[in-house]
């Protein structure tokens, strides 16, 4: 993903158009294309393993006993011992880790000590809120960021361009908490346009969408500001490139040259940004859900922290970390897929 790992190297392109050994060369091509993929996947598995060990160790290293937490301070030592055995907490940590991991791999998130409900079910329920929230926010971010960035690039060096740059700089400095609270003050308290907080459930899709509007905007506006800066930089780079100058000297206007040649090239770094923004939106949703009391993954996570429901925290933390890492991987792979110059580079 970093610049130094993705230098295009024209020397390593597989030889083309040779009648002799074409099969062998295409086989070689396939291997050289798949080998980096396999390597990247392997490092991903290692990273996931490392992340799970990290989460498990941090959350289990403390001497406190979950059984004591569940039963309260008045519990007899015998009762605590019995519950500890029942929960499998008297086993060595290593086997507890593998119990947990084995469950996760099979999609079994376990049962919460506190609510006695299936954690997988709770997470699934929460995702019906967090999923749409993140997607709407991404959409809003793109709708704001793409035109703003394009305008910023085309107006570069003029007053209007500097103004756009200043606006996006300002937008990046606004935390989603602040954006959310200010939206509530203006649109809910003063104008009564949207519900303040809470979520009515998807049984009434219209009301559900209404409840998601403000949270999506608080997340999406900030991401739009960040996105516009990347879009601007990416298009500016194309505008300054030699091939675009050639296209313009052929008689194409700026817009035509960009449409025919520039956008395709400008899109490659933007795919990266969209992927990374998606990851930061998943994390940002944790905050925004708490501003608007939306029963999503973030609210579940915070409630679990406050109730000391450590196994739920452990599950959700692992889920979010996995999402972030998988998005990183997808960004990396799509980069190779979109840019043929990188084929076969490690």
């Amino acid at each position, binding site marked *: 993903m970093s610049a130094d790992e993705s230098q295009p190297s024209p020397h390593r392109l597989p030889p083309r158009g040779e009648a002799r050994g074409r099969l062998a060369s295409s086989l070689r091509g396939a291997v050289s294309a798949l080998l980096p993929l396999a390597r990247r996947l392997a490092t991903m598995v290692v990273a996931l393993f490392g992340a799970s060990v990290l989460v498990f160790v941090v959350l289990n290293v403390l001497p406190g006993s979950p059984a004591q937490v569940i039963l309260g301070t008045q519990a007899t030592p015998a009762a605590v011992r019995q519950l500890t055995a029942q929960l499998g907490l008297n086993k060595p940590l290593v086997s507890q880790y593998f119990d947990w991991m084995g469950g996760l791999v099979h999609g079994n998130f376990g049962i919460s000590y506190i609510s006695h409900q299936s954690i997988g079910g709770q997470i699934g329920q929460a995702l019906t809120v967090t999923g749409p929230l993140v997607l709407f926010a991404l959409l809003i971010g793109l709708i704001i960021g793409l035109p703003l960035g394009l305008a910023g690039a085309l107006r570069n060096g003029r007053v209007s361009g500097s103004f756009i740059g200043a606006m996006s700089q300002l937008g990046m400095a606004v935390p989603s*908490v602040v954006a959310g609270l200010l939206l509530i003050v203006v649109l809910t308290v003063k104008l009564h346009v949207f519900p303040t907080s809470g979520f009515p459930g998807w049984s009434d899709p219209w009301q559900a969408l209404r409840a998601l509007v403000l949270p999506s905007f608080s997340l999406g506006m900030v991401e739009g500001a960040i996105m516009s800066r990347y879009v601007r930089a990416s298009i500016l780079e194309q505008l300054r490139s030699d091939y675009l100058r050639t296209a313009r000297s052929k008689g194409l206007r700026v817009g035509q040259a960009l449409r025919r040649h520039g956008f395709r090239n400008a899109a490659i770094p933007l795919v990266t940004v969209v992927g990374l923004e998606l990851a930061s939106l998943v994390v940002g949703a944790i905050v925004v859900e708490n501003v608007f009391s939306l029963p999503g993954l973030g609210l579940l996570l915070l409630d679990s922290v406050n109730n000391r429901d450590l196994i739920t925290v452990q599950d959700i933390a692992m889920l979010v970390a996995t999402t972030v*890492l998988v998005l990183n991987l997808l960004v990396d792979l799509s980069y190779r897929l979109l840019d043929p110059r990188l084929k076969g580079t490690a």
Partner: protein
Amino acid sequence: MSSAVLPNAPAAREVPADEAFADLERRGRWLRNPSVVIGGGIVALVVLSAIVSIFWTPYDPLAVNPAHALAAPSWAHWLGTDEYGRDEFSRLMASSQIALFVGALSVLIATAIGIPAGLLAAAREGAISQVVLRVTDILYGFPALLAAVVLAAAFGASKMTVVLAIGIAYIPVFIRVTRSNALVVLNSEYVLAARAYGRRTFSILRRHVVPNIATTIIAQMSLLFSLAILAEAALDFLGLGTVAPTASWGTMLASSQDYLGSDALLTLWPSLAIVACVLGFSLLGDGISELREARRRS
């Protein structure tokens, strides 16, 4: 360098005229860059308010005064008072201490580990570099917010879990930036020349790599400082950091939530403080990188 090599070298204090002009020109460029001037100005203001608040605030930021609860801005209370009658302006000032403390310490943790690790990964290809990069991969899975939630769940929320979480989350950023910038320098011809001259790797890192990447790193530090302040505000808002009654911009936002309908100013003041502070540090970082780019191009 020594007079033995260059017997006719001029005395050290005599600076040629054009060089002196170049120096002035360089200083002028700093002061003419609006990002540096505005960003630096805001940062200076925040730092000043934090320092002053250690010795003096208009009121004790923790002093409760029910008779003056939710007062509007006035000469006595410039920005009004909160639901306990505590002076908003004093609380904003005291909060800047926490923001700067968390920002500085977390960036310090991230750089103290990230920069040496990045240099090591750049200088030693092979096993060591692989280990550093794999650890980077793992840490990328834990953005500041997630790391803070996990640490708060394990150790209880406090200012220090926030510092630790933000610091850890930014380690991989510094590793990446340091490594990729250091690799560019290490692959340059003058480093090859220095190697041919017999310089050891450590000495090359110290004499060539570090001075060359310093500006980039400083710009990155300023940007991450702004992100750290954003993260700190969000975490305090969630109740995962500084705990009430201590004043911080995030806790002020959290407690203002109950008065959105009646007293929106309580939300506005900490919001403005956060936005201004974050803007200051990110502008400063941007300005430093702009100047670096400009110098590289010229």
